Structure formats: structure tokens, C-alpha cells
């Protein structure tokens, strides 16, 4: 499939990485560096959500909640255990993994829509608890936390976020192209057929959900130490909606799609900031147009066109 030493695909990937690495030297505006850093955060979330929805065929509504779990676990351990934010982020990752294991173990073994419903219930319960419980989380005021790096510039954060994103995309690429990746796709295509050929679908689903949730929690923890404040908003439903929109617009079930969608929508949403609340309307229109005319998302449609023109798949 990707056996050539440097396929056009590989070349484009390399080009994109070099471009992203050199962008802070080209864009001198701290503001846009900040926007891009946030964009990378969303790109990680969209990429991991895409592994569940686009490959495993399971929709998780707890995705933003896992980012919040990572953010709170990290912020609280930095505050109370006096650990460095880097260690806090590791604690956040592990906490997300533990939570996802229990939710996955309980609900992913069921077929059908139960997993999605369970994640929705979990996300809402989590949001309500952190909002109402004031003592530890400061409720809706948000919990102030230490910054990851003491600096006046956003550029160091930009590179940390980029490293996390590249790590996420690369590890996802490796997993999807491994034997386990075949199992993920088999379960995503037909769970019964997968079981009939000896695939333990429950195990595949739980492990995938664990991987995805751990990375999401890591991204959330980073986000907290980037902004310096963790609020229930991180795990709110509109964040989830944004993640889903980014994935769908970019191209669900493709590796670069969610990254492209996330950067594009984050960029747009900043560009349209002057329209105030109306930008959400423009946003919604954009999504409808994409879904109507590019059903496989921007990247997915582009890929399809290229293949039908005669490029090798």
C-alpha cells in the first residue's frame, strides 16, 4: 500500500510538516500562533475521535469530557501534589485511560447504540459534577493552574502542541497500518463478520477506546496548562459538536482529514470573530454545504476525485 520509499503522499506529508515547523518564522503575529496552537489541540481531538467514528464505527459523545478529565486531573495534581505540569499531564493521561477502560469495559461489549448513550450520560454527569462541586474544581469559575512553560511568547507552546499532534497522527498511522488496525477496520465494517473470523471484537473496541481517550486526555491536560485555566467548558457539548464538525468537514475515515478540518474551522472561527454570535450561523451553513456537496469531507472528496482520475489508490 505505502511501499514506495517516497510516494507523492509521503512527499506531501513531509512538505506539510516542514511548513508547520517553519510557520512561526513566517507568521510574526503572536495572535495567529496562538490560534494555530488551539487549532493543533482541536486537530488532536478530531484525529482521535475519527479513529473511533471513522474506523471503529463507534460514536463517542464523551470525547470533550475526556479532554476535561485530563485537564482537571493534571491541574488538580499540580495544585495539590505540587508536581510539575509535565508530570501532571502524564497523570491526566493515565486518569483518562483508567476512566475510558471502565466505561469501555461496561458499555462497548454491548452492540448497537448503547455505547454512544453511555458516553453521553457519562459526559453529562462529569460536566454537572465539576460544575456543581465547588470545593476542588471551583465550579464554573474554572480552576486556575500553572502554565506549562514560563514564557512571554506562544511559540514554545506552538511547538509542544505540534509535537503532540504529530505524535498522535504518527502513532495512529502506525496502529491503523498494523495487524491491529486491520482488526479495528474489520470490527468497524461488520462486528459479526469480524467475530466470525476470530476477532475478539470487545477487546478491539476497549483497547481502541483506551488509546483514543488517553491521547485526548493528554491533549486536554496540555490545553489547561496552555490557557492556565480549566473550566467545565472544556468538556461541554458544543466542544464535542465542534470536534465532530471538524472531522466531518475534513474527511471522516481518513488520516489527514480531521487535521485539515480542525485547522480550517479554527481559522475560520477566528476570522469570523467580528461577526460575533452570527459567526456560528455562518459556521453552521459552511458545515451544511460541506456535508451536502462533499459528503466524504474535503480531503475524502479530493482523494476520491484523484483516484477516479486515474491515480493509483
Amino acid at each position, binding site marked *: 500500500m505505502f511501499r514506495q520509499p517516497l510516494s507523492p503522499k509521503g512527499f506531501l506529508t513531509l512538505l506539510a510538516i516542514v511548513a508547520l515547523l517553519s510557520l512561526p518564522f513566517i507568521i510574526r503575529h503572536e495572535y495567529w500562533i496562538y490560534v494555530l496552537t488551539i487549532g493543533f489541540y482541536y486537530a488532536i481531538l478530531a484525529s482521535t475521535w475519527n479513529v473511533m467514528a471513522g474506523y471503529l464505527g463507534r460514536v463517542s459523545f464523551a470525547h470533550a469530557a475526556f479532554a476535561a478529565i485530563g485537564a482537571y486531573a493534571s491541574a488538580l495534581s499540580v495544585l495539590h501534589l505540587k508536581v510539575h505540569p509535565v508530570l501532571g499531564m502524564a497523570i491526566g493521561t493515565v486518569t483518562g485511560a483508567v476512566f475510558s477502560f471502565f466505561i469501555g469495559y461496561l458499555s462497548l461489549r454491548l452492540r448497537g447504540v448503547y455505547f454512544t448513550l453511555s458516553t453521553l450520560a457519562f459526559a453529562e454527569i462529569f460536566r454537572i459534577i465539576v460544575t456543581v462541586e465547588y470545593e476542588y474544581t471551583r465550579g464554573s469559575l474554572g480552576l486556575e493552574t500553572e502554565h506549562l512553560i514560563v514564557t512571554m511568547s506562544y511559540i514554545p507552546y506552538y511547538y509542544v502542541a505540534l509535537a503532540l499532534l504529530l505524535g498522535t497522527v504518527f502513532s495512529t498511522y502506525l496502529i491503523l497500518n498494523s495487524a491491529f488496525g486491520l482488526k479495528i477496520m474489520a470490527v468497524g465494517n461488520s462486528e*459479526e463478520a469480524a467475530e466470525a473470523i476470530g476477532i475478539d471484537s470487545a477487546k478491539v473496541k476497549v483497547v481502541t477506546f483506551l488509546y483514543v481517550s488517553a491521547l485526548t486526555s493528554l491533549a486536554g491536560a496540555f490545553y489547561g496548562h496552555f490557557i492556565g485555566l480549566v473550566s467545565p467548558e472544556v468538556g461541554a457539548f458544543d466542544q464535542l459538536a465542534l470536534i465532530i464538525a471538524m472531522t466531518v468537514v475534513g474527511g471522516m475515515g481518513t488520516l489527514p482529514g480531521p487535521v485539515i478540518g480542525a485547522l480550517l474551522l479554527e481559522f475560520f472561527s477566528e476570522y469570523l470573530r467580528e461577526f460575533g454570535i452570527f459567526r456560528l450561523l455562518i459556521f453552521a451553513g459552511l458545515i451544511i454545504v460541506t456535508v451536502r456537496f462533499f459528503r466524504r469531507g474535503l480531503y475524502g472528496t479530493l482523494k476520491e476525485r484523484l483516484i477516479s482520475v486515474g491515480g493509483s489508490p
Partner: protein
Amino acid sequence: MKTVLRAQSVTKSFGGLVAVRNFSMEVGEGEIVGLIGPNGAGKTTFLNVVTGFLKPDSGRVFFMGEDITGLPPHKICIKGVARTFQLIKPFSKMTILDAIAAGALVRVRSKVEAYRRAQEIIEFLRLRNPKRLCGSLNVVEEKLVELGRALATKPKLLLLDEIAAGLRPSEIEEMKKTLKLIRDEFGLSLVVVEHVMPLVMGVSDRVVVMSSGSKIAEGRPEEVASNPKVITIYLGERRGRARG
């Protein structure tokens, strides 16, 4: 002849409907057994019980002498029982190669090895252009991929649920040859659940007839075809030869 599959008094009901009633059958090593019967006779339900997709209310299923009753489907596959589905369940968004390699993963750990095995099966089944998506195939190719996926798991017993449904007469002839070749090349036993009589009568060493969940006849194809009970359930009171 060694017994590969032994189902003992299997009963399975859904609510008030008894789909399989006190049904027993055996499959010997290298044997092709046809399982026929009218719609709703309980053939697919029985297949689902054997492969672990349904748990029987009573009765036991033994594979190679080992009790496999109630094991989950993937564990039964690991033991060496593979199946195809009546309503095919293709891995639509995967390539032919990936779909069949996914089947091989139950026996081999490495993806390279799985691809090698898949390639062999693709050549054996004479599937062209294995980089195509499974969602873009014609009926014959879809059935062959379904078959290939099951073969990749290296089964000792393969259960085929209406593999010939929807095929044209010439394609049925091809399928007949393929099934016999599979038995000889892969050294496995087959249970062929089928409505297409030319296929099932042509390949089976033995035919079991089910009606309303029970076994009503069993024997060599020509014996079964002339059995009055079988003729009655297929054609009612009118007399004639059992044909699809």
C-alpha cells in the same frame, strides 16, 4: 471416519417459536454435508448455534470431541470452525486483500504473513485486482471474498449459509467445482446450507433435511431426493422430482 462436528439434541426457541427442535447431526472428516429444508426450517438458527452466535436452550455441540457449546463466536473460530453469512456481511470499506488478511490474523501474528496467506487464497479463488474495495464488487466476487475470508482462518469445518443464492446456473457450476476443490486442497469438512438444489445435490456426500426445526430425512443425495416425506415438504401433495 473421524467425527469433526457432533451436534446433540440441539433445541433453540425464540419466544413461543421453536426454531430448532431436538436436532442432532454429525459431520465426518473431509465430508461435505448438505443441509436443506424449506424457508424457516431452522437451518440458519442451527448454524448460529454451532458458531456461537446463539446459545442453545438445550443440547450440546462438540467439535473434534470438545464441547464448544456456548463459547463466543471468535473462540469457536479459533478452535477451527468458520462460516459465511446468508446475508453477506462484507467489509465494504476495506480492500479484498485487507478483508481476507483480517481473516488470516487469527492464525498468524504478523501482517506480512497475513498478506501472504491472503494472496494465496486470492489466487486460489481467482479473484482479480485485490486492491479493490469490497463495497464495489459484483455478487459472485462478494461471495468469493466472503468464502476467502472464512478460508483464511484455516478452518477444519466450514459452514456455508446459502453461498449459491443469487448466482446464475453457470456460476453455480463454478461454485460447485470451487467447493470440491476447497475440500480437497484445504482438507476440511463442509456443511452446505442451501436452497439451490443443483449445487447441494451435486457436491454433498450426505444430505440432511430439516423441516420445522426437526430432522425429517438423511442420506445420500439421490436417496433423499426420492424420499416421499421430502417431496411432500417441498412440493406439497403434487408429485414430482425435488428441484430448486
